[in-house]
């Protein structure tokens, strides 16, 4: 695709945005709306809103393998398959074939990618939470990692700004641990979720169960309908792409807004692999790309550059951007580039059954669940075994026919029983904060991919702090379910989950107060290359335990405003 609308032709722009996912889309929207001529570079192919969501309207019986994974798909999407993702015929076209773009695991790492226009904004989990005040001081408090150069109050107005446009559904719960935002109406809980809510809140001081906050417009507001988006239809098939534009993605939200300005050029199939740095001017002058099909290289030039290639690819691109000034990679005076990789560890929690409420059911399919905000090491709840904390995501539902495979019997009665709503089930699983550790890292290996570019080598682990935390994630879940009156409680603490499983890669080019220990300053500018901004997950200084994408949006909008201001003040 080459949307060369009203933008000037040629290879020179005001700004280049590398990447078209959640943060890249925001960078393009903000910069074009402020009048800059912007080039957005995407390494993968075009993926058109609605028309390329090829499976979005198909019924279950229209998939020949009914959700079972063909052997070839499990092989070619091995990281997806290994991490529990399902490269089935309904959704695999949204994911990158792992064999096409290999990586090396010094220690195991599940890297789930979406190399196409829109990136992982098309298949993300959509849960959108603000970091809280203490998330920004956590490193300072316990000494793990370095201090954030910003505080909650610096980002709060930008959270509000992006929430209004993206459309976050949620309830104002009034909890300091999970700050409220600008919400569209919350989704409802079902009967067993309400039961668990009252059981938990009655029995455990300081613990709360709230409805999840997804970037889904439960009820579209004018800002959304103006952009061509409609309210959620409650099909819960988000991962196939939403033909109604009800969840936030680049395609549904930021891209149309940026295109509307007439200032955006989008070029797909170009892998950006170097930022061109001018040793005289002490700033970047452009970006070097290779066409993924023709392998032709090309330079594009701009006054400012936003790197939004996704956490690991942003670091990868910076590591390859060597110059006289930066022999070890752009902005890497601190040797922190590629280090401090973080994710959220998950797979520990509990599930249970409830025998009552047999006369209650629900209508519709909700692409959202419930959320139990962090309570461990918060307020009076002090833990000996670990620092930081975890939140839970979960949901309740009535058991359906899927349970039939593990029940005894077959025949008429067995079949008819499976056509009735079964027992209520309720399950929660923790998302645990990981600590910034310089030994958790990625490097450029000496092996090359099919474009002759260095393959990433992962060398990261969850770390010791997660061991005690995971036990608490499991045990606390069980005690809350038990107190809520659930029975047959089963606990889990899966041991086979590798870093990356959360698909919340963070760190690798952290912000900071000191160029000696960080890669970016408080405005996400690269130390020593102030016209280069990094506003994807790479910038994160700590991981919190909440889903991070909303924070990338807020950081991006904030940095874009600063970039345009600095450009006008002739500081870039």
């Amino acid at each position: 695709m080459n949307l060369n609308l009203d933008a000037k032709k040629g290879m020179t722009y005001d700004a280049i945005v590398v990447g078209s996912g959640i943060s890249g889309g925001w960078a393009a929207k903000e910069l074009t709306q402020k009048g800059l001529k912007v080039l957005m570079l995407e390494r993968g192919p075009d993926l058109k809103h609605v028309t390329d969501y090829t499976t979005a309207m198909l019924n279950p019986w229209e998939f020949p393998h009914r959700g079972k994974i063909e052997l070839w798909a499990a092989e070619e999407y091995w990281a997806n398959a290994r991490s529990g993702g399902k490269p089935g015929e309904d959704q695999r076209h949204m994911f990158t074939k792992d064999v096409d773009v290999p990586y090396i695991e010094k220690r195991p790492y599940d890297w789930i990618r979406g190399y196409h226009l829109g990136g992982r904004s098309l298949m993300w989990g959509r849960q959108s939470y603000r970091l809280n005040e203490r998330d920004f001081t956590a490193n300072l408090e316990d000494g793990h990692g370095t201090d954030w150069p910003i505080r909650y109050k610096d980002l709060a107005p930008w959270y509000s700004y992006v929430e209004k446009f993206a459309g976050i559904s949620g309830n104002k719960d009034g909890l300091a641990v999970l700050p409220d935002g600008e919400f569209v109406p919350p989704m409802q809980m079902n009967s067993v979720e309400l039961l668990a809510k009252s059981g938990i809140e009655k029995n455990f001081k300081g613990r709360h169960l709230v409805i999840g906050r997804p970037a889904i417009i439960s009820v579209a507001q004018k800002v959304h309908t103006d952009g061509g988006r409609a309210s959620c239809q409650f099909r819960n098939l988000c991962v196939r792409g939403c033909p109604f534009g009800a969840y936030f993605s680049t395609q549904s939200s930021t891209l149309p807004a940026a295109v509307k300005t007439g200032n955006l050029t989008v070029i797909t199939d170009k892998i950006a692999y170097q930022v061109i740095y001018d040793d005289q001017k002490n700033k970047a002058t452009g970006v070097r790309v290779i066409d993924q099909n023709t392998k032709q290289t090309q330079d594009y030039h701009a006054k400012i550059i936003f790197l939004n290639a996704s956490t690991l690819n942003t670091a990868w691109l910076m590591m390859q951007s060597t110059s006289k000034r930066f022999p070890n990679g752009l902005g890497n005076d601190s040797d922190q580039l590629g280090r401090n990789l973080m994710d959220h560890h998950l797979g520990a929690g509990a599930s249970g059954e409830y025998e009552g409420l047999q006369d209650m059911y629900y209508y519709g399919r909700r692409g959202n669940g419930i959320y139990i905000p962090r309570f461990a090491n918060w307020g009076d709840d002090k833990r000996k075994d670990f620092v930081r904390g975890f939140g839970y995501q979960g949901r309740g539902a009535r058991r359906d026919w899927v349970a039939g495979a593990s029940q005894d019997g077959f025949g008429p009665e067995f079949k008819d029983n499976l056509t009735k709503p079964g027992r209520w089930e309720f399950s929660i699983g923790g998302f645990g904060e990981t600590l910034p550790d310089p030994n958790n890292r990625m490097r450029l290996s000496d092996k090359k991919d099919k474009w002759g570019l260095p393959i990433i080598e992962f060398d990261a682990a969850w770390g010791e702090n997660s061991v005690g935390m995971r036990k608490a994630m499991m045990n606390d879940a069980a005690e809350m379910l038990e107190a809520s009156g659930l029975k047959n409680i089963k606990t889990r603490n899966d041991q086979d989950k590798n870093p990356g499983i959360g698909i919340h890669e963070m760190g690798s080019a952290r912000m900071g107060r000191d160029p000696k220990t960080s890669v970016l300053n408080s405005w996400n500018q690269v130390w020593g290359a102030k016209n280069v901004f990094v506003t994807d997950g790479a910038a994160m200084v700590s991981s919190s335990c909440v889903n991070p994408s909303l924070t990338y949006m807020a950081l991006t909008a904030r940095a874009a405003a600063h970039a345009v201001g600095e450009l006008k003040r002739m500081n870039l």
Partner: protein
Amino acid sequence: MNRREAILQVALTMGSALSAPSMASIIEGYQPHRVRKSPPSRFALRPDQQVLLDEITEVIMPATSTPGAKDAKVAPTVELILKDCYKPAQQEHFLKGLDAVDAESKKAYAKPFVELSTEQKTAILKQFEQLSKTEAKQHPKRQEKLAKDPETTLGAFAPAGTDQTEAKMVDAETGVVVKDAEKNAPLTPFFKLVKELTILSYFSSEIGCTQALAYVQIPGRYEGVVKLKEGQKAWAT
């Protein structure tokens, strides 16, 4: 003590600090990422086996007040899934199971399965259900058990710089990294598999979704608390 035993020993003294996949990796040593290139599947049922499978699925999911497996064309779906989603060893195991059903029918009633009465068919499949439970007990999924043991510590919690996790052999059916998928992955007993695939193929069929269950393609709204109506069917999805 060979290398494998030595490592298992170490793992045990560490309180099973390593998950089964990473243990398998240590034992195997370094391998670059690679995947088994499965040759195109040659799996196909003979016409008589297709008829037999059709009958078996109908006994598992029979026509009641709603159509059964035959009407929902379950057997062809089961065959396709077996062909594309399972490895040759599992396919062969399934075929042996099919043949055994017929052999058992002939032994008990001197007739092939398809010619038996519903009661006789049910009796035969009950035997196979029992058999599949016994078979499952003989081959506990050791790996699965280890990996899910809540008391073991993190699989990926390995000291920096060790090469223990470099080996990658991905089992295509489970997605789990294994040392030798063929040897380690226990085969699913015949009846367990045919039942699982029959249930899946039936309830995901158009008949299953729209007649046996209730299917709304575009609900348009979500209501969390709804009184269940008398005789209301479960939602298909």
